[in-house]
């Protein structure tokens, strides 16, 4: 039973992958999916020739989008688990240091003013997402108090400034073209994903996931009171910077590619903690798999449930928020288990 619970994320992942690969405007069964993949790997001789339209839909539209939703889901969920550990707060989310606000501002700025720049909407979003977190870090570093709570507050400050900037841009935006683009972008969507975005985001997420898995156990120490962590032999400031940089790169590249996505980074760590426990050595890989699976399922719903595309954040909130509510009520939930006093 216990080993089933531990392997559950992987089982759900594989099932969801094939389910999603076969669903869409151009429906194909799991057998056809396997045939297509086999043909592409040079086994055409055994599985027979596949129709070109099917290949086009599958390899140029569906596969990159699915890979992207898995990468983004893993990336922001991992950032969630890292920030919850660093700030010792089960309610911390990946955007706590201003990465999302910075990214949205950068995207809006590019949609409105920097249209001629080679950077593009996604490049601009990435640069501003990184800039926001860097500013938060610099402000916190100039405080005499080097604790993580100061970093959280300066993240709130930076978020507020970029939010205000975004609001101002939206106020001046031309309503039918620019404003619509900005609003759709801030709600997140995978419909524009092509191999170009996968090539920039996927390697960052894979590298970040590997680093966080390798240095996963150390996150346990980071959840301890700062003086305790120092006494245990960890240079808290140095390692906090390491974890913030890795997580920020993953979230920034995700936000830059598909816009802001709410709830995933907050709830997935809780579900993973419920399944495998609090030890980050197991929690980090479980979070990566669950986050990828969750966003894959959500995006499949977003692209198939109606004739037109639904922004992904609406779907993640509709499914994610009630689930967190359920966790709060359940006795074994990820939140209460950590806080029940003796």
């Amino acid at each position, binding site marked *: 039973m216990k080993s089933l619970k531990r392997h559950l994320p992987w089982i759900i992942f594989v099932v969801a992958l094939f389910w999603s690969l076969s669903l869409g405007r151009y429906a194909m069964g799991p057998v056809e999916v396997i045939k297509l993949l086999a043909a592409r790997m040079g086994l055409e001789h055994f599985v027979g020739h596949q129709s070109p339209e099917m290949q086009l839909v599958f390899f140029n539209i569906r596969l990159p989008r699915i890979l992207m939703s898995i990468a983004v889901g893993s990336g922001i969920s991992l950032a969630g688990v890292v920030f*919850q550990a660093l700030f010792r707060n*089960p309610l911390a989310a990946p955007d706590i240091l201003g990465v999302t606000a910075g990214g949205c501002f950068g995207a809006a700025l590019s949609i409105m003013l920097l249209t001629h720049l080679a950077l593009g909407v996604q490049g601009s979003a990435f640069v501003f997402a990184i800039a926001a977190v860097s500013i938060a870090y610099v402000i916190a570093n100039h405080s005499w108090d080097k604790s993580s709570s100061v970093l959280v507050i300066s993240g709130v400050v930076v978020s507020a400034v970029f939010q205000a900037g975004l609001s101002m841009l939206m106020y001046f935006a031309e309503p039918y073209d620019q404003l619509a683009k900005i609003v759709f972008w801030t709600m997140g969507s995978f419909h524009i994903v092509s191999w170009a975005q996968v090539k920039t985001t996927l390697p960052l997420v894979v590298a970040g996931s590997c680093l966080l898995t390798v240095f996963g156990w150390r996150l346990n120490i980071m959840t301890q*009171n700062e003086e305790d962590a120092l*006494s245990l032999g*960890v*240079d808290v400031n140095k390692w906090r910077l390491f974890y913030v940089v890795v997580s920020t790169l993953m979230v920034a590249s995700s936000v830059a590619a598909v816009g802001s996505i709410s709830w995933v980074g907050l709830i997935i760590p809780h579900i993973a903690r419920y399944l495998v426990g609090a030890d980050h050595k197991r929690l980090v890989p479980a979070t990566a798999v669950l986050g990828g699976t969750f966003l894959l399922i959500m995006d499949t719903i977003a692209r198939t449930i109606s004739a037109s595309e639904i922004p992904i954040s609406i779907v993640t909130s509709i499914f994610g928020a009630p689930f967190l509510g359920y966790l709060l009520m359940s006795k074994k939930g990820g939140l209460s*288990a*950590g806080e029940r006093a*003796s």
Partner: protein
Amino acid sequence: MSVQVEKLTAGYGEEPVLMDVALAVREGCLCGLIGRNGSGKTTLMRCINAILKPLQGRVIVSGKEVNKLSRDKVARLISVVPQGSYSPFPFSSLDMILMGGTARLRSWQSPGDNEKDSAWKVCKDVGITALASTPFNHLSGGQKQLVMLARALYQDAPVMLLDEPNSHLDFCNQHRMMGLVHEIVKSKNKTALITLHDPNLALHYCDEVVMLKEGRVVVSGITEDVINGDYLEMALGENVKRDTTMSGLTVVVPKNVPAQR
């Protein structure tokens, strides 16, 4: 000398909290730190543990100046039992104890079966094997402190700092904690500094005592010599004296309590 503090002046802002503090604790000695609230006991602990940089003077532990060492080297010399602990996530008690081994692991390593075996042995020594798989936050204050003591033991450093480890414990658990600490110091030849609110615990368990008042050392030396009426009054205030119970036990009691019926 295992722990040596030389002419230490330290503080947080303009006003130093500790002034010209000097003390020395030898190996195998359990040394109590006594003083009123705000006398600088915790600040002294933080200086010894190299968390607070002194304004003047230095701290030498096992022949090394702690402020010049990296955090993992300090952790191999000094382990700490904090006043109280809370974990925001549901770690098991064994998870908490295993964190004590951080300084012995490379940054990419995590505890394996060997580490778990030796952490289990420490649980046996402290008598908390029944708690090992219980979530840390489900434990009572006394049980939590025993787990934190086990973690410090598992860290296996020659010097232990205990910062008011009894502050959340009931009467019996205070004595259980002190008994365990005393036994560990003697059997493993450790050096321990412990801050205490109750001078009776120092009197019954500590080999030596250092009394602090307003950031200065009032007196330090063998417990029997140091805990007497004059010094107690200087460090803790006027309303305290040394007495002997009918069964012959030396105790520290208040001179008078209001409205004695």
